[in-house]
């Protein structure tokens, strides 16, 4: 791409970039607010909350918009970007809210509480750009923005050795995977001479690259992005990082950057590889990775006694399910992924909030300490049960509907063995999710009622209600996901 092709961004472009712009402005304002109102984290909290809500409102309003590329075709504002914006803004709002009542983030003696909120805003903005990127340059920049922010957030509890270790581990592995991906990106630039996804697709469709080179490139890029979404064999950082990070951060990580990673995966591979799916044996590669990811995640989760680690491994398993939708790069499969990500954001965040809420008063994430919680914190436990059933994929919860669409696509494409492995994995996952439910109710332990912050009740309810409701009626939301995929293929 030559320089004269670059358009100078203009105001009409910016009009389509409002949610992102809101987040970046919020970041700056929150930093300023933190400096001006020293030691009063309420100020940056309020700024980021207001900013996220504003961005969410704009994001929802933007769902109806048409598709267009802006900023000199570096990013696309289309159905998919709009869909992910809503997810990210929603997750940001929830994270901000429940972090406020979290002991780990807001506890006494914790420094730089304001920065934490600012970082959420920055990272969310970055993820939105990731979902909209349609150029190799933007892909890499947005990915690194999100990654760097997450390294800082992982190490937020500076005095904790565990957190520091998590942060360093995250950064080192992150840097290596970035390097691998960068290598892949430069190769594909070399093969096609194009920077934009659309350009790459046209070049590939014209048959300019040989299959082996293409496969190498795909694998390299896939490895880099696979790291972001914690796909086996690039998953090993995930449990340690989640365990070491403050739980609110772990919850945020388990949902948002993963969704962003998938957004990027979808946009890049669906746009560029669709014309050559026949030439590269991409589906089998994905199928194998999917099976490895879900099976490993589930089997490892079975052995965990720390709930946060259990959820970390289970989130690896969910990546495996999601990859099933990626298999053939069909619109239906990608729609299933999008819908599942929406559902996954609700239920997984919910489960993490529960861990945060319990950790606040029990100071433990150990499964044994969860015994009798069904009697000590009845409402919270019931909501957690909803999240767990949904994560298992049982009706009438949203998780079932999400899994249903993924399996439906795999069967439609006649990958029966994959479907069977997938459902058997669901059965395994039942075992460890039910371990938590079992601890709640089956072993009655006397104890005082557990105090749970009202804010946590509210955020959990905000997530539990749609988790149930989407299991009974999901037509409109599925239509959104369908529209998101339909409206970006050509860009």
């Amino acid at each position, binding site marked *: 791409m030559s320089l004269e092709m670059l358009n100078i961004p203009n105001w009409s472009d910016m009009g389509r970039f409002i949610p992102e712009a809101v987040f970046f402005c919020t970041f700056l304002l929150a930093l300023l607010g933190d400096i001006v109102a020293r030691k009063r984290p309420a100020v940056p909290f309020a700024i980021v909350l207001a900013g996220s809500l504003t961005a969410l409102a704009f994001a929802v309003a933007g769902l109806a918009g048409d598709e267009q590329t802006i900023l000199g075709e570096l990013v696309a504002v289309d159905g998919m970007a709009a869909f992910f914006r809503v997810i990210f803004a929603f997750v940001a709002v929830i994270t901000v809210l429940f972090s406020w009542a979290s002991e780990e983030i807001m506890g006494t003696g914790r420094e730089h509480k304001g920065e934490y909120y600012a970082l959420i805003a920055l990272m969310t903005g970055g993820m939105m750009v990731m979902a909209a990127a349609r150029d190799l340059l933007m892909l890499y920049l947005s990915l690194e923005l999100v990654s760097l922010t997450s390294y800082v957030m992982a190490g937020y509890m500076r005095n904790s050795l565990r957190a520091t270790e998590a942060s360093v581990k995250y950064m080192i592995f992150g840097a290596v995977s970035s390097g691998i991906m960068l290598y892949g990106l430069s190769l594909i630039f070399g093969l096609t001479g194009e920077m934009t996804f659309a350009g790459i697709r046209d070049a590939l469709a014209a048959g300019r690259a040989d299959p082996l080179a293409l496969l190498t490139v795909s694998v390299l890029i896939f490895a880099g992005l696979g790291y972001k979404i914690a796909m086996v064999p690039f998953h090993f950082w995930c449990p340690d990082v989640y365990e070491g990070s403050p739980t609110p951060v772990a919850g945020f990580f388990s949902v948002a950057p993963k969704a962003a990673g998938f957004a990027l995966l979808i946009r890049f591979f669906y746009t560029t590889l669709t014309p050559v799916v026949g030439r590269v044996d991409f589906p089998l590669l994905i199928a194998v990775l999917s099976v490895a990811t879900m099976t490993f995640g589930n089997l490892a989760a079975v052995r965990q006694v720390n709930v946060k680690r259990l959820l970390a491994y289970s989130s690896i398993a969910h990546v495996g399910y999601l990859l099933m939708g990626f298999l053939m790069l069909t619109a239906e499969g990608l729609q299933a992924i999008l819908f599942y990500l929406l559902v996954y954001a609700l239920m997984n965040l919910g489960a993490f909030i529960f861990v945060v809420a319990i950790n606040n008063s029990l100071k433990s994430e150990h499964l044994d300490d969860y015994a009798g919680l069904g009697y000590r914190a009845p409402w919270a436990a019931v909501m957690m049960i909803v999240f767990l059933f949904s994560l298992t994929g049982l009706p009438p919860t949203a998780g079932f509907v999400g899994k249903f669409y993924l*399996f439906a696509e795999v069967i439609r494409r006649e990958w029966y063995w994959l479907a069977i492995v997938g459902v058997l994995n669901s059965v395994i996952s039942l075992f460890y999710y*039910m371990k938590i439910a079992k601890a709640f109710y089956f072993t009655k332990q006397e104890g005082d009622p557990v105090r749970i912050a009202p804010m946590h009740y509210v955020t959990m309810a905000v997530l539990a209600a749609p988790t149930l409701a989407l299991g009974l*009626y999901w037509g409109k939301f599925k239509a959104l996901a369908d529209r998101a995929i339909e409206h970006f293929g050509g860009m």
Partner: protein
Amino acid sequence: MLSWMTFFPVIGALSITFVPKDRKEIVKTVAAAAAAVPLILAVQLFMNFDRSIAGFQFVEHYEWIKSFNIEYFMGIDGLSVPMVLLTALLSFLCIIASWKIDKACKGYFALFLLLEAGMMGVFVSLDFFLFYVFWEVMLLPMYFLIGIWGGPRKEYAAIKFFLYTLAGSVLMLLAMIAFYYNVQDPVTGGHTFNMLHMMDQANHGGILDVANIRFVIWMALFIGFAIKVPIFPFHTWLPDAHVEAPTAVSVILAGVLLKMGTYGILRISYPILPDQAVNFMIPLAILGAINIIYGAFCAMAQSDMKKLVAYSSVSHMGYVLLGMAAMNSTGINGAVLQMFNHGTITAMMFLCVGVIYDRAHHRDIDGFGGLGLQMPVYTSVFSFALFAAVGLPGLSGFVSEAMVFLGAFPVHRTIAIVSALGIVIGAAYVLWMLQRVFLGPKNDKYDDLPDISARELFTLVPIGLIVLLLGVYPMPVLDLMKASLNHLIKVVAG
């Protein structure tokens, strides 16, 4: 009306959550009322059901998820009506039988009502997706009911039940999706979950035209249903679940849940894959015979009363399979009648075991003796139930078992003869138990056991009357199902 029957218990369950924790009487009354409504509706349905029509009645049909052609489609025919009646009756009686539950009683009754809603939904759904949702919904309350209110090994039993049935139902899910993509809606041309469209072979296409794949789908469905029945060798969850579950939950398990398996085979596997059903006749008959004989032998070996009753269920469900495998009018009508009769008889037996367990706090057969003198009313009620289970003429079990054998004999002669041994073994274990518990020298330890109470009798007498009535005059139930089942046989066997 069907929706009301299905969802009224849910309304009841929700209202229970708003009752203060210490007002246990109110909780129980609300639960009983919420279960009484479906029972009243079921009786009304029984009255108004047109017995001459083979097709579906009381149909409710709405759009649900349009983009995937998922419908809210309910309706009942002669196959579902007996099951709906059984569900409504047993659920109500079980709530009465659970009156003594004290531990976390809000949760217990709310879950029980949810369970009723799930079972009812399964029997009235005509959209496969809806069917599947209800099928799974019912697992959750069951898991907690066994796990929280169960016996000493409740955790193991609960998770085993859950894992087994989930493994079965996910296979069913795959079969369901395979149907969805290969059955065409004759009106719109799109894919469909509508069972009636699935039953029409003219709508089948794609992989459903390939015999081998039809066989695989049949097996997937069959394993899903077989685990529920439970058919040997998928039966091992059942004794565990039964023994650990509280009395009322055992009643529901044996009385209604097991029927969902055979109901599923008759409602889904048979009419949608009739060719496979015909090919599978002999294996099914053999499995039925194994269930009958093996279950009976296991029952004989038990020293725990509840385990004995549990294994007798395995045995009695074998008759249902044998009747289904006969694939003629007598056999299948007998099978469905046996489903209903086993539901009532086994409910009586479990309730009776519960009565003695409440008093003596153990169920060891050899730990009793001479109870006949101590508890005469109880003894006569329990003996009545046991004789019904043996298949004593004049009681309902005899009619259905006789029909099953009459149906199976001309088709599977050897298997039927072998299975008939099950009756002999059945008589043996039942009489042996009767003798050890109620007859013989009196065990002085139980000198002050009170006889059966009025509330307990209230749960047993209505079922007893039904057992007696159907034993003498089975037409009320046979009339209900005849038209639909004969139509089914025509569809399957041609």
